[in-house]
Structure formats: structure tokens, C-alpha cells
């Protein structure tokens, strides 16, 4: 019942929001606060099973899934509260996307079998498009296109992996995948699924959609995109390709380096940006690099539930923090002291400043990596580099701060949702850690370990005199711009291409047109006869030989 | 060489000449002449090939020839009527050329 409520409320909202008047208004309210219904199954611990729906739907909160559920419930409802202002009847497309992506996210969170997860994942991916393109500007269309392109690229990889899993075990119960009996299938599906979910997480070089999509979406949408929805990729890793066995361990170092690279690249690219939300998007990329590091570390000791919980903690911390930062971006954060404070605290937290939730989450991350180094599986320098990511993040937050100070438009009111989100970001991870035995009691060394990277960052800021404007500005979406130019050179856009087809697809449509030329030839009578005979003969010959 | 053989050979020859005439001749009337000569040749042929009985040529063959002659004249008469009408309608006495099918 509680599970059903959590799943169905977003759907009810999706049905209601396209209507005008009170119905629509009710729908928007339901949509905004439906995420809170997620807390019900968390409390009841109920399972939901509907065998007759699709290929069988199974829902429950995973033992390790609590932080994710908390994150979704809090971040999403806070953003929803935020969204209720300003996004009214005219933006029913946004609300539809909102409700459906929420629905999908709930399914992803609670999925206990393959089909349920996939259903949710697709719903999240697709409906996010509605939010991204909400602005209807050409930039929004472009972001949407590229988002869809990459989403479907990811989807391709994911569906391959899902089908491979299905081929092995059918609509398998997901917890089983972590058991050794299922290692073979998981191994077979591992890489396609890894890559597919990596798109959602924005792992370099699959990150290009993120800096385009997140800034262009309305503020609350950016908040959940960056704060919650990217975590769907992480959930995918954890649920569908839970690390187990030697193979996972063997790939852990590579994943670790990839994660670190993402963390640094995200920051470096972010530093070249001139827009608040874009910087935040790059920050998300960077942070997701850290998530990958966590996943890699967890791969080394798959049996250890602590590391799994630590990953959850990291996600919870980042999600709430990023949500509050994005909401801040919608409230002219530089307009008053309170606002600046509400911005600064989460930003510091993200840089893992002592006593902040980032300190907690990254402390566990550090421990996980350290454990790996102790086991001899990881290079010891990785720990150092990990620490430097905090410095990098701090630099990026500085950049953020500078940009935020420009946003002084006092007209934009301070929305209570922001405050609530910031509050949650600063407290909830602690509470969760306390509840699940993950507290890190601050000690002097650990506080110092968290502090010096920030000091380093400060030093860099002071010494290098990082100017208010970055010396180098890169366009949003970095790599994609290069690719677009390349594609347009190969297939010039002024050709009467099918409109609104992504640049890459233009190539295909050119190919399609030239094939259509061959088609008309095919339709001619002698050709028909010739072909049929030719086929018969050739096949016949081939079969004879 | 008996007279039967002589007529048999002659009949064969006339048959061949008739075929030639029928095919090569242009005027319908001449074609009909050739046709009638062919017919006569065939009739002679029937009688000579059938052989003789003690009481003269095979009576059955003779009866066949009689029937054949009447059929031939009937067909010729009709053909002539057709030819004359055709001539009246089209002014043609030959079948050469198109049938007016474009």
C-alpha cells in the first residue's frame, strides 16, 4: 500500500498536470510533494509486487538504499516546493516531465527486478527532456537534442546489458545479482551497463550533455537533475552490476583513475565557465568522478557493506548539497548576507570542509581508498590525489562564489525551499550517518586532512590571483562543440536536412536519401525480376556449396 | 509404275503447288483457286492411297471424296460471298497489310 502510494502519486500528478484550473493546480501540488510519499515505504519496509504488470513489477527499499530514498524525498520535494512558484499552468510540459521523471526515479530506487529498474530508468531519462527543453529557446533545443542523443547512446548500452542479463536470467530479482551464482551473467553485461550508466553520471568523456542541460533547465529541474537524477546511474551500477569477484577487483584501479580524472577535468572545465549553473554542472561532473572512485574502491571489497553505505552517504551528501546550490542559483544568492551564507555553507561542505557533511562523506571515501591501498590493489598516490580533489572543488566553489556575488537582483525573493534544502544538506547526512553507524568523530588529524586542501585552494586563489573572469573561457559542453563543428563540416547543415535531427543523424539521413535513389531503381520491373532470381540463385548456390 | 502411282505423285505435286499458291498469292480469288486445287489433289490422294477392291476403287474412299467435294464447294461459295462483300466494303481483294490495329 505504501509502496503503491509512492509509485502511483507521481502518475496521478502526471495525469492531472496537463489540465487547467484547479485540477492542474492540484496536480502541481501533488507533483511537488509526491516525493515525500517515498518516506512511507521507508518506514513501513513494505514490499510491493505486481506480477501482472509489465513482465512483473517488484518494489522495495534496498537495505543500503535508504540514503538514496532520503535524498530523493527531500531534494525532490524541496525543489518541487520551489517550482510551485513561477511554474504554473503554462508550463504543464515541465510538470509532466517532472512527474514522470519522479515516477521513474521512484521505480529506479525501489526496483527489485530488472524490468522495474529499466522501466524507471527509461522514464527518468526521457521525461527529463521535457524539463530541459522547457525554455523553448534554441539553446534549450540544442541542449535537449544533445541530451537525447547521449541519453539514447546510454540507453543503447543499457538495453544491451539489460537484454544480456535477461537472456541469462530473465526478469531477475536484482538482489540475486550480487550473489556468486549470477556472476557469469553480470560479467557479460558489465561493460555495456557500466558505460550506459556512466552517461547519466557524466563520467568524462560522456559528460557533455550535463553542462548544457542542467543550466538551461528551470532552476528546480536543474536541482533534481544534478542532485538526484544523476544518481540513477549510480543506482544502476549498484543494482545491475554489483561488483563481485576477481574481475571487478581487477578493473577497480582503472575505474579509480577514471574517477579521479573526471573529478579533476570537471573542475578544470568548470573554472573556465562564466555562468553560475554551468559551474555547478561541472561541479557535479567532478563529484560524480568521486562517486566512481567510491564504486571502484567498493569493487575491491564487494562483500563489505560499509563501503556500500559509504557510497550511499556520498550520494546523499552530494545530492542535497547540489540541490541547495542550484536552488540558490534561482534566488539571487548574492543579494543579501543570509543568502550568501546559505550559499557558502553548502559550497564549503562540498569542498569537504571540516564538520560539514562533505567532510563526513569524503572521509569515508578516503577510508575506502585507503583500505584499497592497504590491500595493495591501488597505488598510494591515489589517496593523495583524492585529497587534492577537495582542493580542486574548493577552487571551483571560489569561482562559484565570485559568480554568485554578481547575482544581486533583490527582486528575486528568497524561497524557503532553498533554506530548507540547505538545512537538509548540512544536517541530514549527519543524521543518517548517526543512524547507520557511519559517524566519523572529528579528530585533529582528520580535521587537518580536510582543512589543508581548502587552504591550498585559498593559497592558489591568493597567489595565482585567479581573476574574476577566467583567462580561458570554454563554451558550455566543451567536447560537443568540437564534435558539432566536425559533423557540420561533413554534412553541411544548409542541406535541406530533416529538421531537428541531431547533427550526427544528418549523416544518416544523407545516407538514407542516397539509398532512396537506389530504391526507385529497385522498383522497376526488370530489376524486380532480376533481383528475385538473383537472390534465389545466389542463395541456392551458396546453400549447395 | 501403275496409274495409281502416277496420280499419287501428281496429287502430291499439285498439293504442294497449291500450298505454295495459297501462301504466296496475293489475290484472294487466286488463293481460293489454289485451295480448290489442293482439295482436288487431296481427293485424288484419298482414292489412290486407299487402294482398290476387286470391284474398283475403295467405295468408302469414293464416298469420302464425294462428301469432301461438296464441303469444298460450299466453303468456296461462302468464301466468295465473303470476298465480294469485303471488296464492297473495303475495296480490297488482298489480305496483305494491317488489320487496322494501329
Amino acid at each position, binding site marked *: 500500500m505504501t509502496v503503491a502510494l509512492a509509485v502511483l502519486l507521481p502518475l496521478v500528478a502526471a495525469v492531472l498536470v496537463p489540465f487547467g484550473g484547479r485540477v492542474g493546480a492540484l496536480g502541481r501540488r501533488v507533483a511537488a510533494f509526491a516525493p515525500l510519499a517515498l518516506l512511507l515505504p521507508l518506514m513501513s519496509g513494505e514490499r510491493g509486487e505486481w506480477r501482472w504488470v509489465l513482465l512483473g513489477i517488484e518494489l522495495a527499499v534496498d537495505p543500503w538504499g535508504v540514503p538514496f530514498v532520503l535524498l530523493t524525498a527531500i531534494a525532490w520535494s524541496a525543489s518541487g516546493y520551489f517550482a510551485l512558484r513561477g511554474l504554473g499552468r503554462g508550463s504543464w510540459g515541465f510538470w509532466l516531465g517532472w512527474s514522470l521523471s519522479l515516477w521513474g526515479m521512484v521505480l529506479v530506487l525501489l526496483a527489485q527486478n530488472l524490468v522495474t529498474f529499466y522501466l524507471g530508468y527509461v522514464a527518468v531519462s526521457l521525461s527529463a527532456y521535457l524539463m530541459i527543453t522547457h525554455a523553448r529557446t534554441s539553446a534549450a533545443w540544442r541542449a535537449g537534442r544533445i541530451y537525447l542523443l547521449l541519453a539514447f547512446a546510454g540507453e543503447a548500452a543499457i538495453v544491451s546489458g539489460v537484454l544480456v542479463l535477461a537472456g541469462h536470467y530473465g526478469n531477475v530479482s536484482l538482489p540475486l545479482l550480487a550473489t556468486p551464482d549470477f556472476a557469469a551473467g553480470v560479467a557479460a553485461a558489465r561493460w555495456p551497463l557500466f558505460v550506459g550508466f556512466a552517461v547519466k553520471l557524466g563520467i568524462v568523456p560522456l559528460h557533455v550533455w550535463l553542462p548544457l542541460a542542467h543550466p538551461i533547465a528551470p532552476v528546480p529541474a536543474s536541482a533534481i537533475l544534478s542532485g538526484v537524477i544523476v544518481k540513477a546511474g549510480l543506482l544502476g551500477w549498484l543494482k545491475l552490476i554489483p561488483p563481485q569477484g576477481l574481475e571487478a577487483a581487477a578493473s577497480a584501479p582503472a575505474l579509480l583513475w577514471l574517477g579521479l580524472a573526471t573529478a579533476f577535468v570537471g573542475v578544470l572545465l568548470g573554472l573556465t565557465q562564466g555562468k553560475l549553473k554551468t559551474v555547478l554542472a561541472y561541479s557535479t561532473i567532478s563529484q560524480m568522478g568521486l562517486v566512481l572512485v567510491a564504486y571502484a574502491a567498493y569493487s575491491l571489497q564487494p562483500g563489505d557493506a560499509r563501503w556500500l553505505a559509504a557510497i550511499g552517504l556520498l550520494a546523499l551528501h552530494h545530492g542535497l548539497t547540489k540541490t541547495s546550490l542550484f536552488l540558490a542559483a534561482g534566488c539571487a544568492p548574492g543579494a543579501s548576507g543570509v543568502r550568501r551564507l546559505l550559499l557558502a555553507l553548502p559550497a564549503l561542505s562540498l569542498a569537504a570542509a571540516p564538520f560539514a557533511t562533505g567532510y563526513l562523506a569524503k572521509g569515508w571515501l578516503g577510508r575506502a581508498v585507503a583500505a584499497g591501498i592497504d590491500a595493495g590493489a591501488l597505488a598510494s598516490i591515489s589517496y593523495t590525489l583524492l585529497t587534492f580533489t577537495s582542493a580542486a572543488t574548493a577552487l571551483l566553489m571560489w569561482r562559484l562564489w565570485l559568480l554568485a556575488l554578481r547575482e544581486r537582483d533583490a527582486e528575486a525573493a528568497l524561497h524557503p525551499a532553498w533554506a530548507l534544502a540547505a538545512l537538509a544538506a548540512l544536517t541530514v547526512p549527519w543524521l543518517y550517518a548517526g543512524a547507520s553507524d557511519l559517524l566519523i568523530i572529528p579528530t585533529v588529524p582528520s580535521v587537518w586532512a580536510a582543512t589543508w586542501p581548502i587552504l591550498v585552494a585559498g593559497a592558489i586563489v591568493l597567489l595565482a590571483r585567479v581573476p574574476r573572469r577566467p583567462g580561458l573561457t570554454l563554451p558550455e559542453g566543451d567536447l560537443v562543440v568540437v564534435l558539432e563543428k566536425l559533423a557540420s563540416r561533413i554534412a553541411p547543415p544548409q542541406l535541406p536536412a530533416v529538421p531537428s535531427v541531431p547533427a550526427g543523424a544528418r549523416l544518416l539521413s544523407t545516407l538514407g536519401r542516397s539509398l532512396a535513389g537506389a530504391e526507385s531503381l529497385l522498383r522497376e520491373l526488370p530489376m524486380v*525480376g532480376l533481383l528475385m532470381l538473383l537472390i534465389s540463385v545466389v542463395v541456392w548456390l551458396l546453400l549447395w556449396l | 509404275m501403275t496409274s495409281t502411282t502416277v496420280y499419287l505423285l501428281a496429287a502430291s505435286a499439285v*498439293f504442294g503447288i497449291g*500450298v505454295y499458291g*495459297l501462301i504466296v498469292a496475293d489475290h*484472294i480469288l487466286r*488463293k*481460293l483457286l489454289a*485451295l480448290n486445287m*489442293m*482439295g482436288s489433289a*487431296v481427293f485424288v*490422294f*484419298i482414292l489412290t*492411297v*486407299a*487402294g482398290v477392291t476387286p470391284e474398283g476403287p475403295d467405295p*468408302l*474412299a469414293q464416298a*469420302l471424296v464425294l*462428301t*469432301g467435294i461438296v*464441303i469444298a464447294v*460450299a*466453303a468456296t461459295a*461462302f*468464301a466468295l460471298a*465473303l*470476298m465480294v*462483300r*469485303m471488296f464492297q*466494303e*473495303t475495296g*480490297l481483294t488482298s*489480305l496483305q497489310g494491317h*488489320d*487496322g*490495329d*494501329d
Partner: protein
Amino acid sequence: MTTEALTLLVFAPLAGALVMVVAPRRAAAPIAVLSLLTLPPALVPLTRAVRAGELVQLPLAGFAAPLGIVWRVDALAVTMLLLSVAVVLLVSLHALASFPPERESGQRFWPLWLILVSSLHALFLSADLFNLYVTLELVTLAGVALIAVRGEPAAMRAAMRYLLLGLMASLFYLLATALLYGQTGTLDLYLVGERLEAGGLTAIAVALMATGLLLKAAIVPLHVWLPAAHGKAPGPVSAVLSALVVKAALYILIRLWFWGGGGQAGEHAALLLGVLGALAILYASAAAIAQRRLKMLVAYSTLAQLGYVMLLFPLASAGAYRAVVFHVVAHGIAKAAMFLAAANLLRALGSERLQRLAGAGSRHGLDVLAFALAGVSIMGLPPSGGFVAKWLLLAAAWQERGWAWVVVISVGSLLAAVYVFRVVSLAFAQPLREPERAASAGEEQGRAQLTSVAALLLAALAIVLGLASAPLIALIDQGLPPGMLR
């Protein structure tokens, strides 16, 4: 019973013709109807007897084979008679409207028509070489007269050509008959078959006879007369010429070949006949496609369809025999329907140019439907008689490992589809202009409808034949040629 039945089949239409010549005009229609309606009952005892395995024989005037003429009815003859009666009755329905017996045109048409029917039946019954000659002449002359019956110049030219070539063919046949009589001393086909010995004489006799019959049957390349003759003749005449008259010549050829000892001419000759058939199928189909006039197209289609019959000779198996005889029936019915429909369209549109057909589908739907249904059978598409025939023929060809024939048959039916659909698709096309002719009087309209109904009935029969083929096939199987094992 069978004696009376046989007599009726030949004499009823003959009597009808004679009475009609002398009777007053207003009595013409009843006479025609009456004399034709006696035919179906006559077939009942014959069919029953043959189905019971009986060979119905009637020595005319009581004189048996070498001396007299014997009417002999086996399964093949009954099949042909069934076809003939079915086609004649339905085509006559058309003729009742297109040649009203009480009018001048009908007065000219009907006696000839009835004599044609009578002589066709006499031909199918006869087992005597000379009697076959006489009936063949009678059929040809009546056919020629009917072609020219309207007195149209083009029709007369066609008739003239048909007549001259037909007479020549008859003489070939008669010459061969003489040779056969000289060698065997009998004119009875079956006795000839028994007595004939292989040799030069037999060879030339069979060759002459076959050539004559091939010409009468218009097998490519001896076909030049047929398209014009069938194309220019009035509708009912074309229908019966294509459905029955050319088949009569083939019927004699088949009789001669498989019953009369002609098969002794050997495999090579049979092969040649088959090749001619294949040539007919391919060439005539292509020619049909190239036609610009409706009835010419249908006539060329007849040529192509006749080609299938010729495949019997090289295949020479029970399966092929069954297939070919069935094909003769199926094509006869379908082609009669097609010619009637074509004639109706021609009359309604005032021109037989294919282009004028545009839009005929909506205004003359019944005729187009009849044409299309008949076309289905001609193309050999299921469910139709043509399909069953094609199926049987393909199966037979396959069984005899005649791959080339398989290809020819398949290609032939594809080509058939091309020309049939050329017509049908034109009928579906948007009309170029509205050449709507003045609405005809009520009586004329009634007549027009009757002609359409006749065509449609025949076309429906062509389809039904495909669904109810089993009895007919059983009947055909009853009378396989000697030496052919089922």
C-alpha cells in the same frame, strides 16, 4: 438413356437451328432457349455413366467401328461436353441480349450459333477421323460466318484470313487422314491407334495432322489469324471461339496423340510441341502486354493460355494430363467471361482502346468485376480454376523434372498478371473526361444488364471451379489415356 442423351446433345441445337430458319421471328427466342435448355439434362446420364467407369459407345445407324461411325464418350469427352454446355448456356444468355433473336441481327446469328454448338458436340463425341474432319469444317465455317455476322469490315478481313487458313489446315488434316486410312484401313481413331505402326508413313501423317490441328488451335507461330478473328468478332462469338473452338482442335490432337497412336512420333516431336507451347506462352503473353485494344489483348491471352495445353505432350504423364484437361476447362470458362466482359465494356464505352477504359471501374463495375475475376483465373491465382490448373501443371512438371517447363509456367502466369492488371488498373484510374453517353432506353438497359450478368456468372464459375475442383478432377482421372498410370 445415354443414347438419347447423345442424340440430344447434337440434334437438339441442330433442330433448333432448322426450326428457327423457317419459324416466324417472334418464335425465335423460345426456340433458342428450348433447344439449349435440353442440353444440361442430357449431360446427367452421360456423366453418371462415365463416373461409373463406363465407356459410352453409340455406333451410329448400328454399324460398329471400321464400317460405321461410332460416338464414343469417355471422361475426356464428357469433360469437354460439360465445358461446352456450361459456356454455351451462359454465353447464350449474353447473346439473347446482344443478338435479340427476334431482330434481324439475331435472325442471322442464332441459326449459325446453334449449328456451331451442335457441330462442336458432334466433334467431341466422334471417334472417327473423317467425321472429325467434317465436324471440324462445320465448326470452322460456322465460326467464320459468326465472326463476320455483323458485317464489319475489319471482322470480315479477319474472318477471311481465318477461313483460308482454316481450310488449308483442314486439307492437311484430310491428307493425313487419307494416309492413315491407307495404312490401317480404318477411320476409327481407336482402331487406328491399335493398328498403326511406327514408320515414315505414320510420321508424315502425324506431322501433317498435327500441323493442321496446330494451325486450327492457333499455336504460336501458327497463330496469326487468331488475334484478329477473336478480337474482331462479336462478344459471344469471341467467347465461344476462344473457349471451345480452338480447344476442339486441341482435343482432336490430344485424342490423336494419346489414343490414336500419334504418340509414336516419339519424344522429340513431343518436345517440339512442348517448345511451341512454351513459345506461345512467352511470346503471346508479351504480345498481349503490348496491345492497345482490349479485345486484342484478350485474344493474345488466349494464345498464351493455349500454350499450356501443349506442355502435355512432352510431359506425357497422368498428372500433366489431368492438369491440362483441367486447364482447358478453367481457361474456357474464364476466357469466355473475359471476352463477354470486354465486349460489354466495348459497347458501353464506344471504343475498345484501352485508354478509354479509364474510370470504367465505377460506371461499369459489373463488367470490370467480371473481367477481373476471370483475370484471376487466367493469372492462375487462387482461389480459381486457373490456379488449380497451374498447380496441377506445376506439380506434374516437377514430377517429370521438367524444370524448364516450371520456369515457363511461372513466368507465363506473371506475364498474365501484367496484362490483366493493365486492364483492371486502367478501369480503376481516374476518368480522363466524362464521355457519358446518353442514357439508353429501358429495354436496352435491361439487355445491357443481362449481358453483364452473363459475364459475371461465367467469371464466378471460373472462381468456383477452383473451390470445387475435386469432382472434375475425379472425372478427368476416370479417363486417363491408355498407358498412363495414375
